[in-house]
Each structure stands twice: as C-alpha cells, then as structure tokens.
C-alpha cells in the first residue's frame, strides 16, 4: 500500500494547459462556423463538433493516465481550489440541470427558483458543515469516511449499499441526457450511441481513475460554461443591445400576452402558481439536504490539497453555478419574449421559418387549430429549451450544436463522477472488504478498473432500457442522499456522542422513510411528492441516529480522539495516519 506523498505539489502550468484546451475548443467552434458558411453538410458539421469534443477528452484522459493507487482514488490530492470548484459545479449541475433548467424557467417561471435556491443553499451548508471535516479525514468516499469515523467495518458495508442507490439513479439520469444530446449530434442508433458513450467513459475512468476524471471534468466544465454562456448571450447582445442578459429582465416587463390573446400561461414573475408557498420552502430544504449529502461531491473534495483549499473550492463552485443559474433564468425569460413577439397573434399559416425547423427536429410542436396563435399554441420539449432559443434567434447552426455539446459534456462529466464514486465504493468498500488498505496495490488497481468497466456498461444498459424523466431520477437521487447520507454526516461531525450503531440505524431509517415516501407519493398518489421525501426522511434519520446512539454504549477513547482530530485542520490526514498504523501493526505481526 502506497500513501499519498506528504507534499502535494500543484502543477504550476495548469493554467497554461487549460488555456491551450480552451483555445482548441474555441478553435473547433470557429472552424465549424466558417465551414458552415462555406456550405459544409449538416452531418459533417455535427461530426466535427462531437468528434472534436471526444478527441479533446480522450487526449486529456490519456495525458493524465496513472497507475498509482493514490492517483486513482483521490488524484494525489493535487487539484487546486479553482479547478475543484469547476469540477464541483459540473458534477452538481450535470447535463440534467443544464438541459432542464431553462425549460423549467420557461414553463414554471418564478417557481423554478426552488431548484436553484435549494442547490445554492446546499453548497453553502456543504461548505460550512461538512466539506472541511471530510477532507481532513482524508477519506475518498462516504462509506470509507463512516468506517473510519466510527471504527466500524460493518457500517462501511451498510453505507456502501445505501449510497449505491442514489448514485445509480444519478448515473442513469445523466446517461439518459447524454444519450438525448448524443442523438441530436449524431445519427447513431441508440444502442451504438450507448456503446460509444460508454467507451468514452471507460477511457476516462480506466486511464487514471480520479486523476484523469478530475482534469477531464475541469475541461468539461469549461466546455459547459463556454457553450452555455456565449450562445445564450448572442440574442440579447445582437437583437436587444443587452451585454449581460443575466442582469436584465428581458427587454420589456415580464407580462402576460396582450389581452386580445387568451391567457395561455401564467406570468413569469407570478410566485407560487405551480407550487404552494410552504411546499416551495420545503422543496428548497429537500434539495439543500440532497446537495449537502451528495456522495459525488464528497469524492471531489477528497482530491483538494487541503482543508483551506476545500473551503475555497466550494466558494468557486457557488460562483460558477450562480452564473449558470442566472443565464438559465434569463434564457427562460428571453424564450418567452421571443415566442410572444414572434409567434403569438400570428395567423397559423404565417409562422416564421424557424418554427418548421424546430418541429422537424421534434423540439417543438404547434397547435394550428386556432385562427391566431397564442403562447399556449406553442409547446417545446423541456430539455431542449436552450437550443430552441438559439434556433428561434436564427443563430448559425454550429452554435446550436455547440450548446448541445455543452449539455453532452456536462452529462458525461457528472456520469463519470458518479461511476468513479460508485466504482470506488464497489471495489474498496465491498469487494476488497473493509480492510481494503491492506490489499496489495496491483489487486486494488485491477479490481477498481474492472469495477469501472462493469458499472459503465451496466449503467449504459440501464439508461437505454429504463423509461422515465432524467430530472425526476436526479431529484429522487438528491432526496435519497438528503434522507440518508446528509443527516449521518452532519451528526458524525457535530455530535461527538453518536456511535456506529446510531449511524447505521440513521442510514436505514432515513432510507426506509424516504423510499416509502417516494413510492407513496409517485405511485400510490398520496403523501408528499417524491422529490420532497427528504423533508420526512432526514428528520427520521436524525431521530433514529440520536436514539440509537443514546441507547447503546458511548464511543471509545480511540474514536473520541479521532473526532477531536477531525475537527482540527492541522496535523496528519486521519486516513493516512490510520493506514500507517495498520501497516506498522501488520509488519510487527509478520516480523514476530
């Protein structure tokens, strides 16, 4: 077993490397724009953009390959704050949020804010209550942390089983979005596309584990930011002379269509028309708990150089997702404004040409049954709102494909992080057993890589055959994390008296209550809506953990000392110290 080098040297040329990457990316988009003007055929244009993205990712993955176990598990703890901020942002948003949020703002208006406010609040709670302490522990996954904190191998296995459920839901959601975006960029059949995307993911994960994943994810975050922010700015800049659409509210006040049209939709800024005031706040809490307990974020912060860098990295992540959220809400406003000004009130026979383009791509449908069209006559596919806005503003097709490339990059980054986290849990916490640190490095590497490959193809198959809405899967994943992992992590740090039995009871109670709540809300039609299950699941877990801990013997001296060290940023990383002690002990036994 090799440990992380004691000095975590951050590569001083990272900025240069990523500058070159961003330049190459912009070069591909500019080349696509020029070739489009020169008459390049549509399928070649799509091939250039999707092939360019895959080639850049594959190149990065191969350039960051590694065989060292500390690189495979936590990237050698050498990912600085700003890059961890990028990876946290792209992991949290994923393709699901990037695709769905503009559509949600377009359809729900004000009420879609519960998601953005909930995720932002979740990151704040994560930064203050959870992240620095998990980083001090040095653990690379939730089960590894809980096993270390409570000195309980059994808890490690139970936590691995429970954390797998939200992780699998998240991976399937992201892969479904990746398949959707991939089908817009290529003409491959769903099966071939699934295999192609799985191969890309396998290459990223197998070549360097968390190391290659961290650097490709940072690159994918740059792709997402460039692809989402720049095209979304074009309409306001060119047509409305608004340089920062995020700071505007559309060119006109956000009002309903003029009174001669039927009130097709509610006003954008009308609060609580889709969701009640109380449910809005409870939904914020449910999303907050889910984000703060998200296992993928925990595996991300394990790669930072230290506790202070972890705190700063979450601030960077908030900065980046804040920018994306404002762009998404502005895109929802501009889409409404575009449709109201360009379509509403027109006779059915005089539709603009871009409407036919949207209908042929199956991104929109138009009800031409009425003499004059209203806002309600025009329906869009929720997850296609951002490309719909671009097509409606008649921007070059290369930019429409660039937006889709951003969605694909975000979906692949989030799916890869989910697979890395789940693969690590499967190999380190289940297959190699709770004493995985004692297994020789060669076996650990092989098991880890096999787990990545097996899980990638299994999740790809699941995404292909499972019907359902990716956003719903993601919200279920968040609510399950919020009901199980978040309360247990919270008390494990802030309540010294809690013990392994309490943590196990908390995990099981939170999971059971959340599962019953989701099933009754979604399928039996009573109780809370599925995504809000954490509102009852998290308190159930907290109570069960409290009662379970108080009814069983208090933690021993060793565990209490661990908790005291966990709360202090300085000194040895707990995981490294424990592993060192175990290895010394084993050498002594073998020598004796």
């Amino acid at each position: 077993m090799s440990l992380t080098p004691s000095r975590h040297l951050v590569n001083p040329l990272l900025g240069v490397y990523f500058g070159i990457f961003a330049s190459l990316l912009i070069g591909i988009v500019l080349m696509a724009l020029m070739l489009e003007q020169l008459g390049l055929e549509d399928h070649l244009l799509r091939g250039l953009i999707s092939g360019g993205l895959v080639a850049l990712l594959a190149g990065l993955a191969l350039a960051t390959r590694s065989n060292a176990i500390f690189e495979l598990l936590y990237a050698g703890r050498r990912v600085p704050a700003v890059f961890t901020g990028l990876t946290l942002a792209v992991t949290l948003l994923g393709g699901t949020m990037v695709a769905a949020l503009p559509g949600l703002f377009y359809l729900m208006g004000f009420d879609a804010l519960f998601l953005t406010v909930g995720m932002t609040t979740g990151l704040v709670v994560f930064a203050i209550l959870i992240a620095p302490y998990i980083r001090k522990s040095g653990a690379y996954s939730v089960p590894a942390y809980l096993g270390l904190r409570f000195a309980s191998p059994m808890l490690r296995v139970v936590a691995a089983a429970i954390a797998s459920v939200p992780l699998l839901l998240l991976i399937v959601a992201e892969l479904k979005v990746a398949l959707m975006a991939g089908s817009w960029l290529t003409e491959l059949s769903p099966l071939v596309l699934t295999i192609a995307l799985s191969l890309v993911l396998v290459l990223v994960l197998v070549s360097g584990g968390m190391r290659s994943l961290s650097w490709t994810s940072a690159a994918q975050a740059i792709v997402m930011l460039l692809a989402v922010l720049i095209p979304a700015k074009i309409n306001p800049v060119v047509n409305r002379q608004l340089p920062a659409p995020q700071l505007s509210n559309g060119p006109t006040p956000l009002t309903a269509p003029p009174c001669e049209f039927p009130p097709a939709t509610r006003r954008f800024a009308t609060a609580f028309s889709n969701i009640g005031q109380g449910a809005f706040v409870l939904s914020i809490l449910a999303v907050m708990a889910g984000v703060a307990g998200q296992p993928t974020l925990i595996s991300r912060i394990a790669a930072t150089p230290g506790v202070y860098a972890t705190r700063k990295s979450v601030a960077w992540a908030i900065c980046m997702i804040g920018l994306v959220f404002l762009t998404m809400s502005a895109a929802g406003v501009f889409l409404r404004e575009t449709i109201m000004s360009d379509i509403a009130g027109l006779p059915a026979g005089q539709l603009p040409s871009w409407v036919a383009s949207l209908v042929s791509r199956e991104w929109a449908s138009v009800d031409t049954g009425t003499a004059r069209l209203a806002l309600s006559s025009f329906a869009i596919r929720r997850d296609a709102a951002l490309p719909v806005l671009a097509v409606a503003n008649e921007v070059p097709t290369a930019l429409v494909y660039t937006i889709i490339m951003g969605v694909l990059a975000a979906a692949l980054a989030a799916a890869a992080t989910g697979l890395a986290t789940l693969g690590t849990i499967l190999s380190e916490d289940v297959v190699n057993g709770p004493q995985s640190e004692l297994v020789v490095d060669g076996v650990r590497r092989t098991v880890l890589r096999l787990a990545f490959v097996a899980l990638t193809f299994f999740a790809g198959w699941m995404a292909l055959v499972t019907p359902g809405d990716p956003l719903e899967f993601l919200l279920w994943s968040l609510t399950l994390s919020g009901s199980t992992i978040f309360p247990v992590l919270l008390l494990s740090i802030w309540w010294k008296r809690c013990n392994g039995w309490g943590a196990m009871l908390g995990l099981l109670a939170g999971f059971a209550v959340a599962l019953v709540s989701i099933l009754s809300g979604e399928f039996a039609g009573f109780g809370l809506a599925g995504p809000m299950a954490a509102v009852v699941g998290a308190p159930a877990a907290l109570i069960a953990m409290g009662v379970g801990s108080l009814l069983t013997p208090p933690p021993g001296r060793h565990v209490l000392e661990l908790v005291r060290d966990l709360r202090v940023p300085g000194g040895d990383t707990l995981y490294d110290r424990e592993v060192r002690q175990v290895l010394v002990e084993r050498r002594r036994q073998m020598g004796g």
Partner: protein
Amino acid sequence: MIERKERRPYWRHTKWQMVASLLPFLLVVLVLPFYADQLNSTRVLGFPWGYFLLAHGVGVLALITVASFANRQDVIDRWHGAHEDG
C-alpha cells in the same frame, strides 16, 4: 500543531463562526419566499423585487457567506494554532 489546552476554545470559536455564517443565510432563504409575492409588486431595475432577491440576491449572499466563512475560519485556525502546515 494545536496545543491540547487550545482544543476546547478552538472548537467553541469554530461553532460560533459556523452559527454566525449559516444562520443569517438560512433565515433569508427560508423567510424570503413567504414575502416574495408582496415584494413582486415593487420593481427594482425593472425586476419584480421578490424574484430579483431570490434569483440574484441568494447567489450573491451565498458567495459572500462562504468566502467570508473561509477567511474568518482561516483566521480562527491560525489564532489557535490549528492551521495546516506549509
């Protein structure tokens, strides 16, 4: 490395910093939605005020909260000798 007698004051200081950082933010996030409808009748820079505060204000407040927490907590760590080496 932190001295043993400093551990208790350090943790007390850290808990107060946590409460001071988190409580105002959570209060704003959980109370603001109940007044959003009323606030929306006022417009600031063309925005309905309730929408503006939740869409833009919460993000800015979150950034200020976490950035100031990171700096304040770092000062606390150094004051008690609990900071990281190097």
